[in-house]
């Protein structure tokens, strides 16, 4: 370094200004700042998708839950599920509880599966069966963001209870045997106490991964479009794998029993934990 740059300045001296950036430097700085800004906006978008939408959905769920409770006041009771008029799209229709996914895993299901419907929570496929009735009660839900109601759907084991509460009572479904369990069901997992009375249904595994075009999974008899329903089934669908819409994770269950909402009666034991 030269003597001029290292020596102390005299009191009457002024430090020399750094050279002004030329045009190329300024352009590079602008480009860098714009790229950093774009990066920050993208990070914020991820934050919005994964977390902020959860808060928005929680708020919508609260409103839907209050609306559902109001709609049940004074509703007629029945010993068995009965068909009601098809609700309008976006209307809260039932409450889905999956006890094995943890306490509080309970969601108000709205009618319809549009983007806007699913911002509130799981959505009932319009035209599929109503809870507890013959046919397939099919429900879609997000796996990431918007509350991620079906985030852990892949962890459901066979026989896990899926409880759908309506004004009339509780339809208790159980996840069907998985494909790899069906062959040894009678001598294997089928002997577990929670699986009593449950048997595999041909062509309807408890869990399957399909492409988005395989709409047959929500047919009245899953994977057999056009077949007449012989029982009451439930189908839950979500995207797969996480953070991707490339495939669909599908869980099928069958109605175990219906618990009517009667004075003095209580909720199913599955909801006690």
């Amino acid at each position: 370094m030269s003597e001029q740059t290292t020596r102390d300045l005299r009191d009457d001296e002024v430090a020399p200004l750094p050279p002004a950036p030329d045009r190329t430097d300024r352009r590079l700085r602008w480009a860098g700042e714009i790229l950093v800004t774009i990066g920050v906006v993208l990070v914020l978008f991820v934050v919005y998708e994964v977390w902020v939408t959860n808060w928005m959905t929680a708020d919508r769920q609260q409103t839907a839950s209050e609306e559902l409770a109001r709609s049940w006041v004074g509703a007629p009771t029945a010993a068995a599920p009965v068909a009601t008029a098809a609700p309008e799209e976006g209307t809260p229709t039932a409450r889905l509880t999956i006890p094995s996914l943890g306490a509080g895993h309970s969601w108000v299901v709205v009618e319809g599966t549009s983007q806007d419907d699913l911002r509130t929570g799981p959505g009932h496929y319009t035209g599929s069966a109503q809870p507890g009735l013959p046919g397939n009660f099919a429900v879609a839900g997000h796996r990431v963001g918007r509350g991620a109601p079906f985030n852990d759907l892949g962890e459901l084991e066979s026989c896990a209870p899926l409880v759908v509460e309506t004004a009339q009572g509780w339809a208790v479904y159980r996840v069907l045997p998985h494909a790899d369990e069906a062959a040894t069901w009678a001598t294997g997992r089928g002997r577990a106490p929670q699986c009593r009375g449950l048997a595999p249904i041909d062509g309807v595994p408890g869990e399957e991964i399909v492409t988005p075009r395989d709409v047959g999974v929500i047919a009245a008899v899953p994977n057999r479009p056009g077949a007449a329903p012989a029982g009451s089934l439930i189908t839950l669908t979500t995207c797969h794998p996480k953070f991707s819409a490339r495939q669909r994770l599908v869980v099928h269950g069958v109605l175990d029993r219906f618990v009517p909402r009667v004075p003095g009666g209580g909720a199913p034991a599955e909801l006690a934990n």
Partner: protein
Amino acid sequence: MYEKLWTLLPGPPALRVALAVLAAAAVVLLLMTVVFPAVETLLVPGDVAFG
């Protein structure tokens, strides 16, 4: 760009910092409540549902 924005802010440094934080919060709020929901509608619809 940001240097120019900074010079547009009036007052002493403490006030400038406060105004900058408020402006940044306003931009984030605008993104979260208006821009991102609008962008979402342009993405592939029905990303978890069939049909």
